């Protein structure tokens, strides 16, 4: 019995050890504070980067860029860190931030893991453009024009109240307290919008869209195709609804079933003509309207 126990312990431990590797991590941190004058735009063009941009009430732009290389051997990590280049520059009215990978041909493929991590603080009113692939982007506390373009990775936005434009291909979106004017165009993305207010349009193909509208939402138009759409108002009577689907059904709380047509393809409801209108169109995937349970929970 004891032998069996030891044997088991040995097998488990060695399996555990095999599943872990010790990596040497070399991090180059570049920190720069740039003077900012009104009207200047911050333009970030990133590759394989994790990006955090926050609005603050100082009148400067602070950039902290970490370039990280990981490999079991330190020499390899150090050498490959040299393949990661960056640029922090003010050109005319634009503050350009970028990183790129320059891999010498003789090196062939990268052996370790390379990554760039940006932390950027900008004045609240500073317009921001971000482009990124294969990494996470987070934007918060801005009252300016913000345009974000991402492929893969995840976008989190919080408290944006200016003019927000998001174009996402495969990049999931999680937004809370989005207001002002917003335009979201997404493909194959899982989109969750909490406490959505202001006014805007959402276009989505494939993927999933969950919206929790705030009563202060003034207008919303959703043009979806093959996207599962979930709408979670706190009170159904806060809005007027014009919902249409093809090749899929609409589900509404039982009490509102009368406003649904016979084959559940159309839902038109209005408690009062003064309420803001939610327009939703979808195809091949259902639209579900359901009261927000406790105001926060969203089905994932």
């Amino acid at each position, binding site marked *: 019995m004891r032998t069996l126990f030891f044997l088991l312990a040995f097998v488990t431990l060695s399996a555990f050890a095999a599943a*872990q590797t010790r*990596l040497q991590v070399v991090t180059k941190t*570049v*920190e720069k504070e740039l003077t900012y004058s009104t009207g200047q735009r911050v333009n970030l063009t990133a590759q*394989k980067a994790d990006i955090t941009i926050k609005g603050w009430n100082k009148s400067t732009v602070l950039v902290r860029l970490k370039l990280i290389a*990981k490999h079991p051997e330190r020499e390899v990590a150090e050498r490959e860190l040299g393949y990661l280049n960056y640029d922090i520059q003010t050109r005319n009215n634009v503050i350009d931030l970028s990183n*790129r990978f320059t891999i010498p041909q003789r090196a062939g493929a990268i052996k370790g893991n*390379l990554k760039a991590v940006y932390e950027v603080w900008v004045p609240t009113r500073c317009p921001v453009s971000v482009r990124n692939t294969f990494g996470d982007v987070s934007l918060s506390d801005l009252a300016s024009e913000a345009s974000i373009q991402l492929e*893969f990775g995840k976008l989190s936005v919080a408290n944006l109240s200016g003019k927000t434009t998001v174009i996402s291909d495969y990049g999931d979106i999680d937004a809370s307290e989005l207001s002002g004017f917003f335009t979201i165009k997404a493909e*194959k993305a899982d989109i969750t919008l909490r406490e959505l207010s202001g006014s805007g349009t959402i276009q989505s193909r494939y993927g999933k869209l969950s919206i929790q509208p705030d009563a202060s939402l003034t207008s919303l138009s959703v043009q979806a195709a093959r996207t599962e759409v979930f709408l979670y108002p706190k009170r159904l009577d806060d809005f007027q609804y014009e919902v249409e689907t093809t090749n899929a059904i609409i589900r509404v709380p039982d009490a509102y079933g009368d406003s649904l047509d016979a084959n559940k393809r159309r839902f038109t409801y209005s408690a009062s003509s003064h309420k803001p209108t939610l327009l939703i169109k979808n195809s091949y995937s259902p639209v579900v309207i359901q009261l927000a349970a406790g105001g926060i929970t969203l089905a994932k």
Partner: protein
Amino acid sequence: MDWSRAIQNLPEHEPRPDLWDRIDADLRADAVIDRTLDDLPVFEPQDDAWEQIAGRLEKPVVRPLWPRSFRWIAAAAVVALVAGIWAVWQPVSDEKVTIAYATETVETEWAATPEPLPSSTDQKVETFINEQCAQQIVVCQKPEVKELKQQLRELSNRKMAVEQELLVFGNDPALVQAQIKIENERAEVTKELVRILRI
């Protein structure tokens, strides 16, 4: 002559029918050049390259540039210039660069992950779709099928693009996750297409 008549009299020109294609081709060519620029090989010069060049140059003749009395003025000007440059560059060089070293333990993939099935299902599906479309022309003309086929093409292109990135960056977690997303999406679109075409 009045305005509207004058505008009507303006000559009309039709752009050549292939203009868009040409613009598109130009843009693509530019993109390819941009990408290739990054991939150009880097050559290191030989260590003694400068010595070799210097050796081939004629021996310079040293000649005093200014009378002795001007030299001090020139030297003072150089000092002033250097100080000026230093003063101008000072605010720009507030870029702080630090290098830090650390170690971390990461998970690696189990050695015993399931082997990929030795089948060529992807090709079979493509053949199946093409065959079905050849037989059931009507079904394949349905907008839904057309869209799904287009979708599958886009996904296959994306799959190849990510596979290229994986060749360069290795099994990078962000890239592997992207690959998973595409493969799952491809699987779903493929299944739906097969389901429709089977009927």
